[in-house]
């Protein structure tokens, strides 16, 4: 079974600084997708960034980028120039391309931005 692990229940960063959230996963599949979702207090999950496993290039979306290490099964999220609006729960997620295609989430990391 696929599992996703986020080892940092909470993280904090000073506004305008850079923070990295960790995520590791376990799978025997070779083709899959990885996601980072943000969940603000309103509870609605919002996609931050997506990575296809077959792509070696790390995905980037403005201030958000990932460090995807397929062999190590690691998928960390880097937030540059942190803003107060970045404060939220962040969830790492995995979805297999074939078969059941279940979307599996990690436990989440609560990110606090200090002004």
């Amino acid at each position, binding site marked *: 079974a696929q599992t996703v692990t986020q080892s940092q229940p909470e993280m904090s960063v000073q506004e305008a600084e850079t923070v990295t959230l960790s995520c590791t996963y376990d799978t025997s599949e070779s083709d899959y997708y990885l996601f980072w*979702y943000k969940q603000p207090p309103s509870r609605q999950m919002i996609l931050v960034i*997506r990575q296809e496993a077959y792509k070696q290039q790390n995905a980037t979306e403005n201030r958000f980028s990932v460090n995807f290490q397929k062999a190590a099964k690691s998928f960390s999220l880097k937030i540059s120039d942190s803003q107060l609006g970045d404060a939220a729960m962040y*969830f790492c997620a995995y979805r297999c391309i074939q078969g059941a295609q279940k979307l599996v989430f990690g436990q989440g990391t609560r990110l606090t931005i200090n002004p």
Partner: protein
Amino acid sequence: GAGVSQSPRYKVAKRGRDVALRCDSISGHVTLYWYRQTLGQGSEVLTYSQSDAQRDKSGRPSGRFSAERPERSVSTLKIQRTEQGDSAVYLCASVLGGGTEAFFGQGTRLTVV
């Protein structure tokens, strides 16, 4: 509507009663998921269904949890004989297919008393 909506936003149920939570997903989306989100256990998949609207593929089989999908873009999560441990936020998400993003509703906060 443009997104996924869930109703009700808040639900209080007496222990032992059955509850039904509704999700209106996005037209055309193939896969629909139900998650239970708690502080201690994160987001666990309860059930999900794919293009065959009549079949419910349970990610975590449980006799008390079931989902019906009477229409492609509507799902109802039913919880029978609620227990206090069922108190949580229940999230619905739908996916068009493949590696596209999942769109989430705002969730239903269920409190069992």
